């Protein structure tokens, strides 16, 4: 069964003559438990797709079905308990005046979770933060710790689908490794479906099974990571991306 189906999605900004398309004729589906990557350069529309699914961009056309629910202009309450998002910049995604405890308990409260106190402890354990972090403010946390809190917030309502918008691009490589490992573990434990946006083929290759390569708002090609490793990319743009990304010294 597909967790997410996107059919002929168009997203635009501006009105009238100023209308410009950020995403055009994009079609893909993601299986239950699969991890799908969206790759492209800045401005290629990859984040816009995530935002359209999440309901943060109102101007779109096409068909989107998420976890069996066909999406209209407004998202239902049950949608948000199935789909959550992790944002790119951990310094901007936490309210500067709210403690970790407040962030998590509000998220749980909104979803009607019971036993909030014990659940918060569990959640913090899940993302590798001890109970000592529970009452800290964001400015008392490092970038990696903030991103862990953001992931905990996304997991607060036990969603089945996680939208990851460049979750590690603002972090140092060593911290990036920790977060990627965490995402791998969480996916296994909670049987999550991921849609991940990144400009880094290495990161996407680590976490995803299939990749959609985007350019100028369109899909250049969709291929499996395996195929990409075997250099079976068809489109010249994908080949070019691969060439510029493979910079390992080993």
């Amino acid at each position: 069964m597909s967790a997410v189906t996107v059919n002929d999605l168009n997203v635009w900004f501006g009105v009238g003559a100023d209308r410009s398309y950020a995403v055009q004729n994009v079609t893909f589906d993601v299986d239950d438990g699969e991890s799908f990557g969206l790759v492209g350069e800045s401005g290629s529309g990859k984040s816009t797709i995530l935002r359209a699914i999440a309901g943060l961009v109102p101007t779109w056309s096409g068909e989107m079905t998420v976890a069996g629910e066909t999406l209209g202009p407004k998202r239902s309450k049950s949608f948000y308990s199935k789909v959550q998002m992790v944002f790119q910049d951990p310094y901007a995604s936490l309210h500067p005046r709210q403690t970790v405890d407040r962030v998590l308990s509000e998220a749980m409260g909104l979803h009607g979770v019971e036993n909030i106190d014990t659940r918060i402890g569990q959640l913090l354990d899940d993302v590798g933060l001890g109970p000592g972090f529970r009452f800290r403010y964001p400015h008392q946390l490092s970038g990696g710790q903030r991103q862990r809190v953001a992931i905990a917030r996304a997991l607060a309502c036990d969603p089945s689908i996680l939208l990851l918008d460049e979750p590690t691009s603002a972090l140092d490589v060593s911290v990036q490794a920790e977060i990627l490992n965490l995402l791998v573990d969480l996916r296994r434990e909670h049987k999550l479906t991921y849609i991940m946006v990144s400009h880094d083929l290495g990161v996407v290759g680590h976490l995803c099974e299939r990749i959609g390569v985007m350019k100028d708002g369109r899909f250049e090609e969709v291929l499996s990571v395996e195929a990409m490793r075997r250099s079976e990319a068809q489109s010249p743009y994908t080949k070019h991306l691969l060439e510029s990304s493979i910079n390992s010294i080993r």
Partner: protein
Amino acid sequence: MSTSQGLRDWLLSEEPTSRRQARFASWYKGWLTLRSNRLTMFGLYVLAFLILCAIFAPVLASHDPFAQDLGQRLLAPGENGHLFGTDSLGRDIYSRLLYGARISIYIVLLVVMVAPLVGLIVGTVSGYAGGWIDVLLMRITDIFLAFPRLILALAFVAALGAGIENAVLAISLTAWPPYARIARAETLTIRNSDYIHAIKLQGAGAFRIVTKHIWPLCISSLVIRVTLDMAGIILTAAGLGFLGLGAQPPSPEWGAMISEGRKYILDYWWVATIPGIAIFAISLAFNLLGDGLRDVLDPKEDNS
């Protein structure tokens, strides 16, 4: 000694263990920042002194502020047991000053409760809702902004009748638009931040987002602006008093006192000057405090 050290450690702990501790700790750190600014602390001391004067006015006053004694009129400071002298009706200026502090602080408190609140609501609603609501609310704000403040207040008082409450109302009605502007500008930047998106994705409604997530961030810049405006509010109130449209005689409002002293300013300087110094002191104190609060409350503060 050891308990106070323990309290300090508890407050500065990097790992608070309860909601209460986290909240107290953040207040305490703010207080430490505030305390490190000497001018701000000076402003705070002046304000505390004025507030204590207002509270204990009956104890501190040497005379009845309303008792007239025409035989003792226009006495110089220090004469006949009148610390700051007497006015044209022989009333003790020192005692009137103390009771006047009550009125000034009363006015300030009322205005502070009304104007920023109205501004906050109008601004955040307008900024968050956008569309035609934004256009409508902002045009109304523009209309209020387009009038000179004192003139508009005058018009209101003239329509409503003279008196302190009406003066407060008039000042509040003219003071809210700048707050609405600030709140709207803040809201526009906050609205598109990822933490607001994140809470939206948790299914939070507009009311919750505005009151629980946007207000706390706007309030700090409003508080700063209010403390900086406080001087202006007191001066407007004094101005209305001076024009005879604020507090009515014989009430010892500072502006009205200056107004009365105006006639004698050349020969009996203290009648107008001493309430003037009081207004100056309270305005300055609020300004200094506002400057310091900016350092504490600025949401862009860093942990470095």
